[in-house]
C-alpha cells in the first residue's frame, strides 16, 4: 500500500522532510496505470462505467482542490462550486461561440477558476472560520443566481448568455487541432485521467513547497504567522486562487463530457456535497478526499433509484465521523499500520462517543 505513504501531512510532515516518498510515487503511478487499464475494459464491457469514471475523476480533482485550502490552509470554503461552475461555464461559452479546441478551453477554465477564486478570496479571507465559510457560500450563491436568472444577458442587453435555468445544452465535443478526437469517450477519459494525475502531482508539489509550508503555518496559527513577518491575507488569497484554478479545471473537464452546463454546478448543495467528500475521505491528506469523491459518486449512482439516497449517504457520513474522524484515509492508514490497533480505535471511538455525546 505504497500510496498510503504518499501524503499524510499531520503524521508525516512534523518529523520527516519528505511527504512524497518513493513508495508514494510508486503507489500513485500504479493507481494511474490501473485506471488507465480499467478505462478500455469499462468502455468495452459497459460504456456507462466510463461515464462514471470521468465523473469520479472530475469530482476527485474538485475535492483535491478544496482539500488544498481546507485541509492545508484551514480555509473552510463552502463555495467551491463557484469555481467549478465558472470553469464549466467558461468552457461551455467558448465551445459555443469560439472554439472547441481543448488546448484553448481548458486553460481558460483554469484561468476562470483562478480569477473567480481570487475575487471571492480577496473579499472573504479577512473573515475567519464560519464567517469565511458563510461568505464563500454567499458568493457562490450569487454566481448561481446570476447564471440561473441569466443576469449577464440582462446587463448586456442580449437574448441569452448563460441559458438561464436550462443552462447551455448540446455542447459540441472538444478536439485538439483536429489531431485528437475527444468526442471518443475513451480518449476523453484518458485526457481527464492525465490531467487529474498531473494536478495531483502539482498540488503535492505546491503543498510541499515553501509556500505550502506557510499555508500549514497559517492553518496552525494564523496570528503567530503575522508576528513572524507573513502577510497572512496575501498568502490565503494566493492559496485560494491556486485552489480555484484546479476547481475550474475540474468544471472544465466535467461540462464537455456532459455536453451541458447548468446552474446546479454553482449551487451550494454541490459545495456541501464536496465538504462531505472531504470529511469522508480524510481532511488534509489530499488523496483521501479524492477517494471520498469516488465513494460519494458511486453511492449516489447505486442508490439514486432509492428515493431518499441522501439518507443512506447521511448514515454513512455519521458512521465515518463517529468511528473514523480522520476519514477513509485514516482508516486505511491505521489498517496498514496495525489492523488490531485499528479495531481498538473503533472501540475507543465508540466509548468516546458514549461518554461525550450520549451522556
Amino acid at each position: 500500500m505504497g500510496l498510503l505513504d504518499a501524503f499524510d501531512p499531520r503524521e508525516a510532515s512534523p518529523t520527516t522532510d519528505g511527504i512524497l516518498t518513493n513508495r508514494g510515487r510508486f503507489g500513485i503511478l500504479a493507481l494511474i496505470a490501473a485506471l488507465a487499464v480499467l478505462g478500455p475494459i469499462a468502455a468495452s464491457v459497459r460504456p456507462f462505467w466510463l461515464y462514471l469514471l470521468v465523473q469520479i475523476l472530475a469530482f476527485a480533482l474538485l475535492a483535491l482542490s478544496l482539500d488544498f485550502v481546507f485541509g492545508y490552509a484551514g480555509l473552510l470554503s463552502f463555495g467551491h462550486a463557484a469555481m467549478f461552475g465558472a470553469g464549466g461555464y467558461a468552457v461551455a461559452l467558448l465551445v459555443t461561440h469560439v472554439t472547441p479546441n481543448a488546448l484553448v478551453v481548458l486553460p481558460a477554465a483554469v484561468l476562470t477558476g483562478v480569477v473567480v477564486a481570487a475575487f471571492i478570496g480577496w473579499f472573504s479571507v479577512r473573515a475567519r472560520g464560519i464567517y469565511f465559510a458563510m461568505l464563500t457560500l454567499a458568493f457562490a450563491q450569487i454566481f448561481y443566481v446570476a447564471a440561473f436568472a441569466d443576469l449577464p444577458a440582462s446587463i448586456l442587453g442580449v437574448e441569452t448568455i448563460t441559458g438561464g435555468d436550462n443552462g447551455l445544452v448540446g455542447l459540441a465535443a472538444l478536439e485538439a487541432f483536429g489531431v485528437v478526437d475527444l468526442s471518443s469517450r475513451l480518449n476523453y477519459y484518458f485526457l481527464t485521467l492525465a490531467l487529474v494525475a498531473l494536478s495531483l502531482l502539482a498540488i503535492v508539489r505546491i503543498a510541499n513547497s515553501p509556500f505550502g509550508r506557510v499555508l500549514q503555518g497559517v492553518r496552525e496559527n494564523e496570528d503567530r504567522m503575522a508576528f513572524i513577518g507573513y502577510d497572512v491575507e496575501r498568502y490565503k488569497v494566493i492559496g485560494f486562487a491556486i485552489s480555484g484554478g484546479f476547481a475550474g479545471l475540474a468544471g472544465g473537464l466535467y461540462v464537455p463530457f456532459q455536453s451541458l452546463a447548468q446552474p446546479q454546478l454553482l449551487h451550494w448543495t454541490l459545495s456541501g456535497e464536496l465538504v462531505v467528500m472531504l470529511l469522508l475521505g480524510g481532511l488534509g491528506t489530499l488523496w483521501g478526499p479524492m477517494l471520498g469523491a469516488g465513494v460519494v459518486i458511486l453511492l449516489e449512482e447505486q442508490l439514486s433509484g432509492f428515493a431518499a439516497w441522501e439518507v443512506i449517504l447521511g448514515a454513512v457520513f455519521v458512521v465515518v465521523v463517529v468511528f473514523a474522524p480522520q476519514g477513509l484515509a485514516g482508516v486505511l492508514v491505521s489498517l496498514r499500520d496495525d489492523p488490531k490497533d485499528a479495531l481498538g480505535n473503533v472501540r475507543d471511538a465508540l466509548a468516546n462517543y458514549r461518554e461525550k455525546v450520549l451522556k
Partner: protein
Amino acid sequence: MSEPLLRTDSVTKRFGKLTAVSDVSLSIPEGGISSIIGPNGAGKTTLFNLFTGKHAPTEGSIEFRGDPIGGLEPHEIVGRGIVRSFQITNFFAELSALENVRLATQADRTGFAPDDFLAHHASLSEATDEAEAVLERIGLLDVADRTAANLAYGQRRHLEIGIALATGPDLLLMDEPTAGMGPEQTDATVSLIENIAEDATVVLIEHDMEIVMNVSERIAVMNNGELIARGTPDEISRNEAVQRAYLGGE
C-alpha cells in the same frame, strides 16, 4: 547621544471608555536589556501590542529608527526588525520544533519568487540550517523532530522565544519569558536572554523583580496605563511612586 532605537511620544490607547495606555513617552536606546514592569493591568502588554501592530495607537506616535510605525500591520513591523514573544505560548502545536522555528527562518519579506511554489521543501536547506542553529542556541536541538505540543513546559517557553529569535530581530520584545518556570528553568532562560542581548536589543516585561534588577540596564514602570517612573535599577528601587504602586499605598 545617538538616536533611540524606539521612541514613543504621548502614546495613548483607548478601548471604548477604558484607557489601557495613557500618554506614554519613552525611548529605548539600541543595545542591552530594558524592562517594563508594573502591576497586572498596568498596560505593559498593551504597549507591546502597540509596538508590534496588534493595535494602532488612539493618539500619539511610535517611531523605530526615526520612522513612524504606529498603525502598521504586524508583518510590516516584523519587516522593520521588531519581533515579540508571547506571554502565553503561541506556537504551531502540530508541527515539529524544527518546523516551528523554520517557518520564521524561511520568512522572505521581499515577496514571492516562483520557486516558493515549486521548490521541494528539501530545498529549504538554508532555512533548515538556520533553524537548527537557533534550536541549538535555545537548547532544543535534541528535540528538533518532536511535535511542539509534546514538549515539556520549559521547552515550549524556549521554543516560543526561538520562533521570535529566528526572524533575526533588531529589537526583541519578550512578554514574561520566565512565567510559570521553576528556578532552574528560570536561570537557563535568563542566560538565554543575556545571550540574545549580545546581538539584539531586548525589552522584557517581567514580574520577577530579582531578574529585572539583575539583568536590566534601564527600567520603565507603568501603573494604570501611565508611565510613572524610568531609570536604572538603583533609581527605580529607591523611587517612592514605584513603591506606592507596588505596595498599594496612596
